[in-house]
């Protein structure tokens, strides 16, 4: 459970650009192009057979796909009742898991814009939708895609879902090879540990067999065991999002340096709103640490809600750093340290798409420290975190094309 992604196939990096170019040329010949307006019509008025789109929009939509207003997209797909909307509600709308029982089934594509440390869209697809029918424009669905998340109900008969997923992968791979395909083997909370592993292996086997039969040896497919009743779905989404972040390895290096110097047990760079972490140190995943960090963010957010009211008669009593900072020491001397990272508005260009993601106001660094001396060295920890913050801003302010990772973080002072 703790380290869900087992079978991970690395994506081929080398021939990427050349292939993408080819796919551009190929895409233009696709017979069933439809305009964006038409797609939204189809999405919004499903059942309404009115299919008339202005031709100007059609021509306009071609350059638009790489324009600055297109957000990276996460597509949630899978058979009906597999739990797509529940995942979206729990992760992005903070719905308590047991309330998802009352969610209506999705009948149209739910487009959700997430404004967080990076802006992206989550498209929740109705399971019964046949998006490969000619009525749907593949370009509009997959064009500005970050990742495709396929949800499989592990408690149900999954053969149908696996077959459909394979069909989807083959189609998508043909035209859009840059897409990450993420398979969530979902609802595993109801399965015993042993059965869970078996199901996981069976699904992985079936998909990779089929793909290699079709000639795709190293398709970028990743698998996760998830459930909305624990933190695994957040963990899985974190991994999905992390793959879209261009400077991930630099971030991880920075966090490693910080964690080693400060003696942190585990450190996460969290997106506060969704509680997805965009980077962490490279130590093994520890569910307990993740849970505590994530719940501690809740505590701080909830308390802030109670005391952040505005009134002219609230006066400050002196100077203070603008970013929120907090820590708690638990009964067993474990310390959880949290620091907000919002000094500057930063621009983070998205993976392979030239989209600027602004605002890291929502990022915060949360660490678990299991060292009883830590609470006496808080000043040092704070200082190191500030250094990290500066380094982080430097990473994000560099443009993606320049590429070179700043060699920073060496300046963090060591706790002796």
């Amino acid at each position: 459970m703790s380290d869900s992604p087992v079978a991970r196939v690395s994506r081929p990096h080398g021939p990427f650009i050349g292939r993408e170019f080819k796919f551009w040329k190929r895409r233009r010949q696709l017979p069933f192009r439809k305009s964006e307006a038409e797609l939204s019509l189809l999405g919004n008025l499903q059942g309404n057979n009115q299919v008339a789109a202005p031709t100007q929009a059609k021509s306009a939509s071609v350059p638009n796909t790489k324009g600055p207003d297109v957000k990276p997209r996460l597509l949630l797909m899978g058979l009906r009742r597999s739990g797509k909307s529940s995942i979206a509600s729990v992760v992005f709308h903070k719905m308590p898991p047991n309330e998802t029982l009352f969610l209506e089934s999705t009948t149209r594509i739910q487009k959700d814009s997430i404004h967080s440390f990076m802006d992206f869209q989550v498209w929740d697809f109705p399971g019964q939708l046949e998006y490969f029918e000619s009525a749907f424009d593949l370009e509009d669905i997959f064009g500005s895609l970050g990742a495709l998340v396929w949800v499989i109900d592990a408690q149900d008969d999954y053969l149908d879902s696996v077959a459909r997923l394979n069909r989807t992968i083959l189609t998508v791979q043909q035209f859009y090879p840059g897409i990450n395909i993420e398979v969530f083997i979902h609802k595993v909370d109801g399965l015993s540990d042993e059965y869970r592993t078996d199901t996981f292996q069976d699904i992985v086997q079936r998909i990779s067999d089929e793909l290699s039969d079709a000639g795709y040896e190293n398709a970028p497919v990743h698998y996760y065991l998830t459930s909305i009743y624990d933190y695994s779905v957040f963990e899985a989404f974190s991994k999905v999002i992390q793959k879209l972040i261009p400077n991930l390895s630099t971030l991880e290096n920075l966090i490693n340096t910080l964690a080693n110097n400060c003696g942190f047990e585990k450190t996460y760079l969290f997106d506060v709103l969704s509680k997805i972490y965009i980077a962490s140190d490279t130590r093994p995943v520890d569910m307990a640490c993740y849970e505590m960090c994530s719940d501690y963010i809740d505590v701080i957010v909830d308390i802030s809600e109670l005391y952040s009211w505005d009134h002219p008669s609230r006066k400050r009593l002196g100077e203070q750093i603008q970013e929120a900072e907090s820590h708690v020491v638990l009964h067993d001397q474990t310390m959880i340290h949290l620091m907000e990272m919002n000094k500057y508005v930063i621009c983070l260009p998205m993976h392979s798409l030239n989209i600027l993601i602004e605002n890291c106001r929502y990022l915060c660094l949360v660490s678990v420290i299991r060292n009883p001396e830590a609470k006496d060295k808080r000043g040092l920890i704070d200082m190191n975190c500030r250094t990290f913050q500066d380094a982080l801003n430097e990473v994000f302010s560099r443009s993606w094309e320049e590429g070179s990772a700043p060699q920073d973080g060496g300046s963090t002072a060591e706790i002796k």
Partner: protein
Amino acid sequence: MMDARKKKRKVLLMGKSGSGKSSMRSIIFSNYVAKDVRRLGATIDVEHSHVKFMGNLTLNLWDCGGQDAFMETYLASQRGNIFSDVAVLIYVFDIESREVDRDLDTYHAIIEALREFSPNAYVFCLVHKMDLIQAEHRQRIYEERSAVIRSRSAGFYVDTFASSIWDQSLYKAWAGIVHKLIPNLVVIERFLTAFAKKINAEEVILFERSTFLTVTSVTSEVGELNPIYDRHERLSNIMKAFKHCAARNTLTTPASAGFVVMHTKTPQFNIFLGRFTDNTYIFLVVPPGEASYNCAVLNTMLAREGFSKAAAGGGGDGFPLPPPESLDDSNGNGTA
């Protein structure tokens, strides 16, 4: 020597069967989370439990099973045993009950028995399971119901609360109840008021350690402007939820989990949470300002020492009575 000053208060928890008495008791005093209470079975006869609360105050909780047969014995053969020496009666009404009149008749009979044996008891009525009522009707239905309850209370002054185990209203109700039970509360409050003023706090709250119920609080003029009125209950709820998380992830029981200290600094406010006495946490909200915040924390530590010294001197029961001068002294030293 201490035993003489120990306060034991008998608390009766009554109400119709299935109204949620044991559920709320488990959540408040036994560290259950709301969704775990479905595991509880029906209470047979009376379950006694002792809850240590605030220093020397012990609540002797009588959770009385509410099935009709039990109710009859309470009112007949057990009458003297049950209803004598009662400090508090907590009567729980299920808002979803279909037999409102019958519930009220039972309630009236209980109140009559209470008047006979413990006429000085406090009576609290909880209108429970309010989460089942649509939000827009809650206030109206609750007010109607509490008016009816008051009319059947035979001269007792009755405090009523709307409650639900699914939100913070449960903490509000129980904080209201324990607030009435703590001896020397006036002294504590006087101390806290002086203290809050000294450190420029917007708000100072004392929480009981294991239940995280608000014992008492002091709010400054500016703090009163805070538009969120149920913040104390919500804090109880937030902190208790985190305590559960901490217990789960450090492999201990919720009862032994807790916080040593918590600091939070934001541009709008600074918060300090720390142990105050053996059984309380102090929660300070001070305006931003690094230096003044550190002073406030330091002063809290000093005040705590003064507090426990006064307690060792044995000023009073339940909560020690610090002489006001010595407090001012310790504060003066801290701010200097």
